[in-house]
């Protein structure tokens, strides 16, 4: 059978170059694996584990230092086959902007086949077909830079398909997309695999995406750590060790199994229905026992947020084109001191516009934002003399803040805002060191050049730069985007610790599971309007409202809801109460509810 075969490959970046003085760590070390033709494979691993390097080797953008790579019978070390191999593979990368070459959509789709020397009329036919396959034919004469993120990624996949490849590699291609665009994008790729026999390789941090594949390969520090079907990997591998997590529904299931003292097998993980069946079986086992510390856990979760209003958005309208259309329409929203408020919605719904107003970076078309830094003080965003104080009260961290670092040391970068505040040198130093500590950066990192740090550290440094100004409210735009699962958890742990130290948090996210698990209240925005602003329990507990607003339920809720339904069939008296959104907590919650209901039955 034809396949891609990687045999004992080692690869180090810069090994061909002149920089022999500092031999770098190999990005891949003695790695061997096989990917069958027409299969669907996910490559997982923490940031920096060598996933993207592997993709580049398969597409012969880099060649291995040692070992062999054979793509469908062609050895990549054979120079005469170079183009033949590269033409067989196509890639879609993470950042849509950095892979578009043409200005106009159809010109960009044509770039690949033009390079292959495809002549008209076949060239035209291929380009049109590719645009139709991914559903962007209507956009063919549009300017590429004016498309939305999701459309740009569809354009990238059309550009890849127009080359008629046999292998399609998605290198974190969905990382910057919202859930809906992500699903559409994956559906296109999967459809093309089935229709055209493409071999699909996806590199991802999203575990639910990995579940859709036939095979998962886990990389860790440049070597292959595990390989197998999703069920096998999620059942048998110690994912935490590789900076990964199980998908939320599996985390939920494993917690229930743990509480009941049962184990789940690979077989149980092969499908949602089968897994629910197994869980129902576990929960209906007569020997099921309660765990004494469970009660506490469930109760300790409720902490009522302080009620003092700290910010109030009033009848806000915002426009980028002088009032012809509104990015934000008639928004009224209160933020309370000490809470974590999540703002969710699809890309382009006005989330980022709304938070930019909170710190007075852009001016409203009409309406007002009032900020109450302390009792009896009101700052108005529209009032010029308040602006400086507002910017010190409301700290704003944009998406990918690490791209905005500029000083030669981390310390200087953190101090940037402080210098603008005209604080004394000692005060600056004290604040910078404390801010760095609060985001978990060591003191010696302060002296280093920010561009030498890892991605996660850079982001922390950038956040520290805002925290040093001691904002009462911290507004974060997609703080976890692009991080691996362990990095995401750390980021949210950081956010929680900031809240404990008294900072009010406003958090923009398009990940419903995280928003529901970490936020006290969720504000849904659609087409610039607020559709709801309430606790996750109230919002996601009300199915009609959810459907009416048109938002996605968190994945954990989807899974838990259908399980609850199954349980009700055998245990009609069960009362599950309000749902929780942390998979483990929800598992304990469901477990307790079942225990209670059965105790009642016995009586």
């Amino acid at each position, binding site marked *: 059978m034809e396949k891609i075969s990687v045999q004992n490959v080692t690869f180090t970046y810069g090994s061909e170059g002149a920089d022999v003085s500092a031999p770098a760590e190999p990005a891949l070390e003695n790695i061997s694996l096989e990917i069958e033709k027409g299969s669907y494979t996910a490559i997982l691993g923490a940031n920096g584990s060598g996933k993207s390097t592997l993709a580049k080797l398969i597409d012969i953008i880099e060649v291995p230092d040692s070992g062999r790579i054979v793509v469908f019978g062609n050895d990549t070390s054979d120079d005469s086959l170079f183009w033949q191999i590269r033409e067989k593979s196509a890639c879609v990368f993470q950042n849509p902007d950095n892979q578009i070459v043409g200005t106009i959509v159809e010109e960009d789709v044509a770039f690949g086949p033009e390079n292959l020397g495809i002549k008209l009329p076949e060239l035209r036919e291929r380009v049109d077909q590719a645009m139709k396959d991914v559903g962007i034919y209507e956009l063919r004469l549009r300017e590429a830079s004016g498309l939305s993120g999701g459309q740009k990624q569809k354009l990238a996949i059309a550009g890849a398909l127009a080359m008629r490849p046999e292998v399609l590699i998605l290198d974190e291609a969905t990382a910057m997309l919202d859930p809906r665009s992500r699903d559409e994008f994956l559906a296109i790729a999967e459809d093309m695999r089935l229709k055209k026999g493409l071999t699909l390789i996806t590199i991802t941090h999203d575990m639910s995406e990995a579940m859709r594949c036939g095979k998962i390969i886990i990389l860790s520090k440049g070597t292959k750590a595990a390989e197998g079907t999703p069920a096998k990997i999620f059942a048998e591998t110690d994912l935490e060790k590789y900076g990964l997590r199980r998908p939320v529904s599996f985390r939920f299931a494993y917690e229930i199994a743990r509480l009941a003292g049962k184990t789940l097998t690979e077989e149980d993980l092969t499908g949602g229905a089968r897994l629910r069946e197994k869980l129902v079986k576990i929960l209906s086992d007569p020997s099921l026992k309660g765990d004494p510390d469970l009660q506490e856990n469930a109760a300790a979760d409720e902490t009522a947020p302080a009620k003092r209003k700290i910010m109030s958005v009033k009848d806000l309208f915002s426009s980028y084109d002088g009032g012809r259309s509104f990015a934000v329409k008639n928004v009224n929203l209160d933020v309370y001191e000490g809470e974590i408020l999540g703002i969710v919605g699809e890309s382009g719904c006005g989330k980022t516009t709304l938070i930019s107003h909170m710190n007075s970076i852009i001016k409203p078309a009409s309406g007002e934002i009032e900020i109450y830094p302390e009792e009896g003080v009101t700052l108005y965003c529209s009032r010029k003399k308040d602006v400086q104080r507002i910017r010190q009260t409301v700290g704003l961290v944009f998406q990918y803040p690490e791209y905005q670092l*500029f000083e030669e040391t981390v310390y200087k970068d953190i101090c940037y805002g402080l210098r603008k505040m005209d604080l004394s040198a000692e005060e600056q130093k004290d604040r910078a060191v404390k801010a760095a500590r609060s985001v978990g950066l060591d003191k010696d990192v302060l002296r280093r050049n920010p561009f030498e740090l890892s991605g996660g550290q850079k982001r922390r440094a950038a956040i520290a730069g805002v925290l040093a100004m001691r904002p009462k409210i911290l507004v974060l735009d997609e703080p976890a985007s692009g991080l691996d699962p362990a990095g995401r958890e750390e980021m949210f742990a950081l956010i929680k610790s900031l809240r404990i130290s008294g900072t009010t948090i406003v958090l923009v996210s398009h990940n419903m599971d995280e928003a529901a698990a970490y936020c006290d209240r969720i504000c849904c925005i659609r087409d610039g309007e607020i559709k709801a602003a309430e606790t996750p329990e109230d919002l996601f507990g009300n199915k009609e409202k959810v459907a009416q607003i048109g938002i996605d339920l968190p994945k954990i809720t989807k899974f838990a809801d259908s399980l609850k339904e199954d349980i009700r069939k055998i245990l009609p008296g069960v009362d599950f109460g309000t749902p929780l959104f942390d998979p483990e907590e929800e598992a304990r919650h469901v477990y307790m509810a079942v225990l209670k209901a059965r105790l009642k039955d016995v009586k």
Partner: protein
Amino acid sequence: MLSDISLGRYYKADSLLHRTDPRIKTILYLVYLVVIFIVKTPATIGVLAGVIAVQLVMGKVRPSVIWKTVKPVLPLSLFILILNLITIRQGNTVFQWKFVTVTDYGISRAVLMAIRLVFLILSTSIMLTLTTTPLKISDALESLFSPLKIIKVPVHEMAMMMSIALRFIPTLIEETDKIMKAQVSRGADYDTGTFLNRLKGYITVLIPLFVSSFRRAEELAVAMDARCYRGGDGRTKLNPLRLNATDLLVGMFLFVCAAGLVVMDLTLR
């Protein structure tokens, strides 16, 4: 903040000028460049303004877009105007205040220079950037300069570099905007303070902008590699350039206008 600058941006429309062969437009652009710097007399400048207006109509460019194109160069234009006003000492003095002397020759010269600059921007925009996609411009240059390939000038590579540079203008403007907003939210102020301070402020914008440009360039190079880019040899074109009768007519018409302007200007002097 910067998003309303349309200098160097393509303006999507279906017009006579949009459809015209980019090679013709490139040649016409060069011709008008010369014309703009030759003509001097007020009458010819008036007619030239008329011809540029005709071009704008042929390109179906909306007035708001024209305004956005011209707006960013107005300060520079004004600067040139004032500089010329106070530095030119020839001619009869019309106005004097302390050491500032303004002469009649200085006024006409200053106005001419300011108008030229505006015409230059308008003519570049209408002939090239507004009506022609960057890839078409680079196609045109590649085709026009292709004879130089014989003496080993890397014509294709240069054209490709240019079109990519143009393609990234909107992306980099967006990026600059983001960086500036992030710094403004940390207390930066680009609009007040001494000139030197303001300059310093912009340096803190330029550093992350450069760093991210290098990162983008690297990623783009990988993406182009992955799409089998291997230089100009053997490359085909989705929309190859073909001259047709309309192109020639447009070219002839605007060329005759240009020649007429020069003749008119020379006779009026």
